């Protein structure tokens, strides 16, 4: 394997630009940082009205088939949209909904997709995906939760922590290991008997999560998505890498702009602090990082659109570089805002916490580089 061919124009069209601009305008108006603050301090953590509007804009069904209420668009659209939502820390479980959509697309049979996708696209159903298993592992080999066939259905056992919007979701899709060791994805309605939902107290107040404990939860046979196997889970992950990386680039971009603006407004020693190279150059390095990461995200999205089966390398590169750039961007933001940056009043800490969350989920830079190394250099010692 090496980096796949992508169109020289990334497949970019006017249509993409229209989506990006409308998303930016909508979020500027409906999701200013003051609103993010308000929701971050609210019990629910997001605004159902806003959720409905997002659904009406077609965002939730962006890559779902038109026949199922989706817009039938591609991953470059998705990346451009999520860059905008990440930029505003949109406190709504849209990333979770995307993961659920990827799972249905990868594993659902026509009937299952026809039943669930319209509800997902309309926003009537808040769907999420349980990435992690007990202990935080998320790769196929680390999934310990089990599904046991019983009376024409299945008994699900195990713990799924860090589930985005787990406390309010009406549906969770999660991987379980069947007798024989094969993995399968199950779409479980919530609330349901045998599934204990414990809200978590998370670092990031703009992205709520819960711990789902499956205690012999019985689900019908139709809850088991058709296409089983580690490869299916992997398909979901690869798309997840790009989606999360897109959000991260957006967040890093905002952090950069916030720091840039402060460096222009703030004066010390009778000068704008942005005139000091100790302030200017780190900001420039963050900008360079953001542009390189953005390039990888856009290219990975183009790869998913045009070479979906060889998009793993682009997707891992995107998540790897985003996982290096965003944490540096927020670290510099807090530091360069000085005493103010250390306070709750400064907005930097919201991005700081989202950056920590995002690096931790779906593999950090070193994790993905380990996989890429096998491709570049062959097996390790």
């Amino acid at each position: 394997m090496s980096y796949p061919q992508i169109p020289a124009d990334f497949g970019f069209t006017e249509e993409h630009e229209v989506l990006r601009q409308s998303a930016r305008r909508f979020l500027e108006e409906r999701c200013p940082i003051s609103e993010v603050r308000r929701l971050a301090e609210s019990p629910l953590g997001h605004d159902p009205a806003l959720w409905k509007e997002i659904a009406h804009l077609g965002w939730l069904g962006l890559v779902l088939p038109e026949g199922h209420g989706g817009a039938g668009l591609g991953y470059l659209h998705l990346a451009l949209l999520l860059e905008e939502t990440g930029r505003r820390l949109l406190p709504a479980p849209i990333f979770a909904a995307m993961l659920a959509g990827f799972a249905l697309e990868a594993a659902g049979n026509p009937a299952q997709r026809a039943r669930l996708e319209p509800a997902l696209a309309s926003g009537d159903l808040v769907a999420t995906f349980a990435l992690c298993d007990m202990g935080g592992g998320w790769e196929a080999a680390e999934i310990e939760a089990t599904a046991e066939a019983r009376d024409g259905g299945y008994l699900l056992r195990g713990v799924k922590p860090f589930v985005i919007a787990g406390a309010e979701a009406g549906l969770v899709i999660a991987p379980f290991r069947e007798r024989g060791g094969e993995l399968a994805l199950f779409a479980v309605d919530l609330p349901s008997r045998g599934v204990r939902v414990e809200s978590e107290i998370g670092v990031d107040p703009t992205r709520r999560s819960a711990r789902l404990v499956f205690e012999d939860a019985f689900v019908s046979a139709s809850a088991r998505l058709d296409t089983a196997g580690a490869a299916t889970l992997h398909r979901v992950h690869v798309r997840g890498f790009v989606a999360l990386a897109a959000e991260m680039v957006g967040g890093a971009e905002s952090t950069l702009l916030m720091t840039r603006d402060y460096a222009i407004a703030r004066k010390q020693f009778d000068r704008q602090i942005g005139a000091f190279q100790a302030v200017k150059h780190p900001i420039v390095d963050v900008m360079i990082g953001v542009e390189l990461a953005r390039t990888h995200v856009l290219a990975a999205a183009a790869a998913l659109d045009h070479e979906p089966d060889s998009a793993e390398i682009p997707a891992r590169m995107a998540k790897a570089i985003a996982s290096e750039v965003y944490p540096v961007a927020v670290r510099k933001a807090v530091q360069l805002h000085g005493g103010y940056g250390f306070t709750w009043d400064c907005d930097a800490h919201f991005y700081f916490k989202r950056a920590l969350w995002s690096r931790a989920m779906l593999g950090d830079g070193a994790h993905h580089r380990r996989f890429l190394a096998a491709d570049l250099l062959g097996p390790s010692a």
Partner: protein
Amino acid sequence: MSELAQEVEPNEIAGFRREVRAWMQANKPGDPGFKLPQSFLEVESDRQFEFLRDWQRKVFDAGYLGLDWPAEYGGQGDPLKRQRIVSQELSRARAPFLVNVIGLQWAGPTILHYGTETQKKRYLKAILSAEEIWCQGFSEPGAGSDLASATTRAERTVEGWRVTGHKVWTTLAHKSKWMILLARTDPRAGKYEGLSYFLFPMDATGVTVQPLVKMTGEGGFNQVIFDNAPMGREALLGQEGQGWQVAMTTLLFERGAAEGSGGGQATSSAESVQRLASLAKRARRGGGTAAEDPVLRDRAVELWIQEEALRLASLRARIPGLNLDRPQALRLMNKLVYSEFNQRLSELACEMLGPASTLWLGDAHAVDRAEWPRAYMNSFGMTIGGGTSEIQRNILGERVLGLPKSK
């Protein structure tokens, strides 16, 4: 840093160390059952405060504070070395920090240096016993890195002065009896010459303490508004107009460039590489543990080498013959190196934890009570407070290497 005591010592010293170590083991308070602050920057509740004040008094009553301060001011007139041993054993025992740290480490030594006999007699003992807590009034919203641009005014009155202005980062102000205050007494004089240094009574009228919330959501870190707040003549420390010079002395102590504190450390249980290692062995990562990941191992060892260098530098700093080329370098660089080391260490811990690092204070499943992400965020208090890392690099470049000023 761990294992601070790894040095071969003469017997009487070793004996004293054994005695202190034994006392710590016997008297160190247990888990209070509520969240304790990681540093003096986040003392919030009364119970936290009282718990910490009691602990300092206990250490003082045992005769382990102010060893190097003159007996007539509540000290014992011992060599500095003995006080250093107590500090080392305090952090070795991972005991809670001493809550009156601003009094012990910054106000106290400055008063010893510039205070009148009356002032020394009045303030020092109550600092050691934690009867009177101190806070610092240097930074302002418009004067952070550029401290000398402070605009808080102290206007002459018959009895003394009246203060009007706004100070931030006034940690512990809500618990303090006194503040070391940098204020402008002569607006017509130069930026530096117009400043004076005061020992300000926090119970004065016209003083409002407002909580400031940190990025962690924790309080304890607040701001003070002065509206014509009066103080007497005796409040002045040093000469009028000498404030900048006195403040620089305080910063020398604050930044560890000079020794002579009443003892104690500013943080409980500084995070150490040994603790990082024990976390790494528990933290799951890709099937195995973080401790088995070669790349994380490499980074952890980089930190170990840094930590040992810092520990050994604290020994080397006391051997003049091994510091001839740059006598002040080790002391002046300590704050910068330690604060950035500590930041990298707590960030690496979060990376080792992976998804588990996203659980926060109060979550039942948070590893080590979310100590690591909390420590990472609090680490910025050290890379920003007391002169940002950027300012530290200017100071080192100009004072130690003789490079031209950046202004």
